[in-house]
């Protein structure tokens, strides 16, 4: 099966529940007419993504660029299937591997090894694959004896190494990536880049959200620029970012 992503008029409204309209009391009172409002829904809504239409085919390396709050990470999460669109449609074919938040699902009170096993359960792996993940992640993270220490006691760099090792022990057809991976010590970064480059090469489609234009020029074949949730530019890196 060939990997592909098709989005048509994709929209995401992000209700801001922490805004004043949150509580049941307010809602009941509003229904009772005590609170006079002109709009029919008293929710505060941010339109995170508006009417995105694009398709990504095999072999494309796509960078999502735009300012903070433009909707890059939200779009990655929609592609990963975490947020469901309120309007429009999305069709994703192919195994998805997402490197959105490396620490998601880690248990700080468990040891590194226990966390690797937990991750295997999260991914619903069989026993053989779980063992393979354990060996592979243990080796790549280079944690040695620290693997049997609760990760609460890890330094920030060690935690990044472990989560990076676990997150990248995948071979997805579609790779979704946020730019968190640029942390870690220098020695590790060398190996990390090599590993990421392999992952990127082997994936049929990559979508990465980043501010780092050097990465865009080095890795990507296409750039989508988002602004306030709208798709404003779509083209090759040179077209969108200007000639290097």
């Amino acid at each position, binding site marked *: *099966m060939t990997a592909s992503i098709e989005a048509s008029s994709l*929209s995401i409204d*992000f*209700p801001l*529940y922490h805004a004043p309209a*949150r*509580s*049941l*009391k307010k*809602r009941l009172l509003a229904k009772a007419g005590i609170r006079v409002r002109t709009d029919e829904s008293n929710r505060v809504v941010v339109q995170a993504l508006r009417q995105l239409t694009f398709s990504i085919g095999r072999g494309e390396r796509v960078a999502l660029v735009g300012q903070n709050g433009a909707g890059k990470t939200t779009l990655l*999460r929609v592609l*990963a*299937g*975490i*947020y*469901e*669109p*309120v*309007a*429009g*449609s*999305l*069709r*994703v*074919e*192919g*195994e*998805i*591997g*997402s490197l*959105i*938040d490396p620490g*998601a*699902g880690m*248990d700080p*009170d*468990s040891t590194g090894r226990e966390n690797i096993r*937990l991750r295997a*359960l*999260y*991914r*619903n*792996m069989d026993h*053989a*694959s779980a063992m*393979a*993940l354990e060996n*592979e992640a243990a*080796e*790549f993270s280079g944690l040695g004896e620290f693997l049997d220490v609760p990760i609460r006691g890890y330094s920030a760099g060690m935690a990044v190494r472990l989560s990076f090792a676990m997150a990248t*022990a*995948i*071979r*997805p*057809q579609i790779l979704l990536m946020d730019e968190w991976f640029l942390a870690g010590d220098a020695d590790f970064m060398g190996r990390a880049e*090599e*590993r990421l480059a*392999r*992952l990127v090469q*082997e994936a049929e489609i990559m979508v990465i959200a980043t501010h780092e234009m050097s990465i865009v020029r080095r890795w990507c074949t296409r750039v989508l620029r988002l602004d306030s949730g709208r798709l404003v530019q779509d083209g090759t890196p040179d077209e969108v970012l200007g000639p290097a």
Partner: protein
Amino acid sequence: MLATAPTLLPPPTIHVIDANNPNLRGRAIEDLREGFATWRLAFTLARLDLRNRYRGSVLGPFWFTLSAAAMIGGLGLLYSQLFKVDLVGYLPHLAVSLIVWQVMAGLANDATTCMTQVDGVIRQLKLPYTIHALRCTFRNALTALHQLPLILIVFLMLGHNPGWAALLALPGLVLLCVNGFAASMLLGMLCARFRDIGPIVGNVLQLAFFLTPIMWKPDQLGAVKVWLPFNPFYSILETIRGPLVEGGGGILAWVAAIVFTALHAGIAFSFFVRFRGRIAFWV
């Protein structure tokens, strides 16, 4: 290095979402199916929850056992005096009622935060939501396992033998589990959306503790007793208490318990069908 890594992902997937044709019911059923198929994840997480909660504590979850034992002993002595009843006749009733109540109330309280607690996971990983409700159910079932043996100890100490009828308590426990899962789903979602529901649940439980025959026996109500089956807590409790204390519960309580469970599960399911896609935005 990656060349030696085996394929670590499940078989190829096609993932389609169309807001105009959302197929809510199908996706909810798929979520449940996938969630139950990966119950080992939920169970492992529940075990870790308990372990982490009692990290560094000597007795760990056996604190529950100890506090329940103290409650039963203390309240048993006091109320057998207040009600002028025989301690030996009263204690089995109190032990079963109090322990089952603590399991029910603990679960309902825990359920209110079962989605909001794991907001990080919900926002970062695509997992069936069923996993989170199942984790909450397992967590409380594990806690219950530390308390239920107390019933046996009380029975042994008093020489109370419920006979074979005690086996009827097993379907009662199943009903309790079904309700626990439904409550985790329903309250988990409701409380993610409306943060005020949590405290409301706490208050309702406090009141329900007194309205349910836990400290007192149903017979003490006299003629008003006929209304008791309308109290869902009583009906569920009775399917466990009846068999263990009185050689089988009243048929009415069983019918009521089954009806309540079906209603509860039905409401939870329709909520789940309708609002499953919104949970990620709520937490």
